[in-house]
């Protein structure tokens, strides 16, 4: 199944999966008409999409700045060609030149094959925006991917992974389907661990009324990145914060942002606002999740249907602030292995977090080595936008999509002796990189950044 006419495609959500996220899939004979109708709606709404459609000069500068083209050499993975998959339809139906000159200007009639192309290539884009950074005009192909995925969602074409995460978000409020008892159990277990390993006595408050701070962890931290959760817990305890984790939205990520920037994304936002209101908090602090932080910082203001009185910051904004004001005592020698930092693209290109990450890093480790390129020119890990598919075909693609990052990690030399650390302070980056550092034999262990802070804190 996961190929269609030589294109790789993620495993699809079934009709039943789609119903759980409130979509009745469109029958094949209506798909083309519906797709045009949705496209018309999107183009009238999003200027970022329209300018991407109408001002590209086909210079090709974006090509080798996209890890998907570098890794696969598939011409449709060149950002402007990815956009062209929609642009050719856009031109044909919504521009004069496309209607008059057709093929000459690259216009094409819509067909089911084109829709299948969208499904394949918009789910190879990691929405990392390196194309926007490199384009002389700042054309943001990520915006085109958003539009493509939104139309596909309305047609009923969504990867099984994304659809099931969307359903879990609505059911329990997090991506990994963890109900409250599961959350509480895990946190108690982690607190015991912390006492044993760090000699620190603390608890992870859940749903504690009248807290000052609402901490939003990534739900993957409960299962896969325990040191990230421990690090955050240690930090909040160290500073004596009155904090809590909300069980109705124990999720820093927001998969809605990745395939349905309407109901699914907004639903998670409203859960957050409910939690903040009910627990009476004064500030919301976000955990390590790249797309989730972008969705929170940049989209909540325009997504929320009511006023948002709580300031929202990232945990590394706060850690960096306390480091800059000399209020944290950190002992970098507790992290003595060589470390390099993978700038999650969503932090470094969409949220302006890159400098704070460095402040925190430099105070927490002894041997920090920069990767080049980095910061706003960072290359994506290849898993961005949740393309963490594990069927064999897509898994092979993931290895290709992470090839560029692997090359850059190797160039830093941190893994030369097999004991390096690749710090990737984003849940999806971690999920992608855990297997990928093995596939590419990089000799590094993947860690979050707050993990390193937690370890370096000096308690007495």
């Amino acid at each position: 199944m996961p190929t269609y006419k030589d294109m790789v495609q993620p495993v699809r959500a079934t009709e039943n999966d789609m119903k759980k996220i409130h979509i009745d899939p469109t029958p094949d004979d209506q798909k083309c008409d519906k797709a045009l109708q949705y496209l018309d709606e999107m183009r009238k709404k999003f200027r970022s999409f329209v300018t991407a459609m109408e001002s590209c000069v086909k210079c090709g500068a974006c090509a080798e700045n996209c890890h998907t083209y570098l890794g696969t050499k598939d011409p449709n993975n060149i950002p402007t060609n990815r956009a062209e998959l929609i642009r050719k339809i856009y031109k044909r139906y919504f521009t004069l030149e496309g209607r008059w000159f057709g093929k000459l200007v690259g216009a094409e009639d819509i067909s089911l094959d084109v829709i299948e192309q969208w499904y394949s290539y918009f789910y190879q884009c990691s929405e990392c925006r390196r194309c926007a950074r490199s384009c002389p005009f700042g054309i943001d192909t990520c915006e085109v991917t958003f539009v493509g995925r939104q139309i596909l969602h309305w047609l009923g074409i969504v990867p099984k992974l994304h659809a099931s995460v969307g359903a879990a978000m609505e059911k329990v409020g997090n991506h990994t389907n963890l109900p409250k008892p599961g959350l509480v159990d895990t946190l108690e277990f982690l607190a015991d661990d912390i006492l044993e390993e760090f000699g620190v006595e603390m608890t992870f408050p859940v749903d504690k009324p009248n807290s000052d701070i609402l901490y939003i962890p990534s739900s993957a931290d409960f299962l896969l990145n325990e040191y990230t959760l421990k690090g955050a817990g240690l930090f909040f305890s160290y500073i004596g914060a009155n904090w809590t984790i909300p069980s109705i939205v124990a999720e820093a990520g927001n998969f809605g942002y990745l395939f349905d920037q309407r109901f699914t994304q907004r639903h998670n936002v409203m859960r957050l606002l409910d939690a903040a209101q009910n627990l009476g908090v004064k500030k919301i602090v976000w955990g390590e999740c790249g797309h989730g932080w972008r969705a929170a910082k940049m989209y909540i203001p325009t997504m929320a249907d009511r006023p948002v009185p709580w300031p929202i910051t990232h945990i590394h904004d706060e850690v960096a602030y306390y480091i800059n004001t000399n209020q944290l005592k950190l002992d970098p020698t507790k992290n003595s292995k060589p470390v390099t930092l993978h700038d999650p693209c969503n932090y470094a290109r969409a949220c302006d977090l890159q400098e704070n990450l460095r402040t925190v890093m430099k105070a927490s480790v002894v041997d920090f080595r920069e990767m080049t390129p980095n910061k706003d020119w960072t290359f994506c890990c290849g898993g961005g936008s949740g393309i963490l598919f594990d069927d064999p075909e897509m898994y092979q693609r993931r290895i290709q999509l992470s090839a560029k990052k692997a090359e850059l990690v190797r160039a830093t030399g941190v893994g030369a002796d097999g004991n390096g650390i690749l710090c990737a302070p984003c849940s999806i980056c971690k999920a992608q990189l855990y297997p990928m550092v093995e596939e590419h034999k990089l000799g590094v262990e993947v860690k979050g950044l707050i993990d390193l802070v937690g370890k370096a804190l000096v308690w007495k």
Partner: protein
Amino acid sequence: MSYFIMQIMPYITLVVFTFGVLFRLGRWAGSRIVHNITLAPFPQRNSQVLGIFAAEAIFFRSLFSSDRTLWVGAWLMHIALFSVIGGHIVGIYTLGEEFIYLGLSSDLSKEMSALLGVTFGILMLAALVYLLIRRFTITKVKAVTGPSDYLMLILLLAIVTIGDIMRVFEHQFGIDYAPVKDFVAHLIMLKPLPLDHLALTTPFFVLHIFFVQILLMLFPFSKLMHVFGMFANRWIINRVYKEPAPGLPNVDIAAARQAGIGVPSGEGGV
């Protein structure tokens, strides 16, 4: 034929160009900036935003970092293009005596004007050829190029080549500034020229003007809209963003450490 190209077509061109561009820009304006998609690092002041716009428009700064070989050709081509356009306007208006204002004699100014014109004309030709070769030879560029992309470059090459020929072989094919100024003035005043006017009887000049008008009419319906597109795009992705203040409510780290929070009792603080 030459009468149509030189006396009627210009008005059609003007209308198509103006309404075409307005139509396109109007469509862009009709859509909205729905979410905040500012690109980091975030500018903190409008002066920084202006700096980004200027660096991108004048130096193609992003392109310089992302694709150096393209930058060389594209930047040279645009610099030459702007110089040539500027030269046309000033040269024709002052009849090549623009450098009198810099203290040159009238004759010297005309020579200077001609020399600069040739230089930038040839430079632009070279840059355009470079860009065209690039489209034929580099795999990734070939992969993004369609028929209209080749045609656009060829059209530009035609305009520039004819212009250069008129410059280099001035006496056989060229035309002086005076009749050109006459031609422009008559167009503006809506007055027809006599049929035997030099502007209507110099074949290369007529051809030059013909292709320029084709280009201008294609402008609103082609990628040449990138001229406005760049600013429209950057207006979306380069804007001021103010961060919320860091610092957590009711947190006093010194007091917390003093109290020995987290340190198991018995070994705690002071």
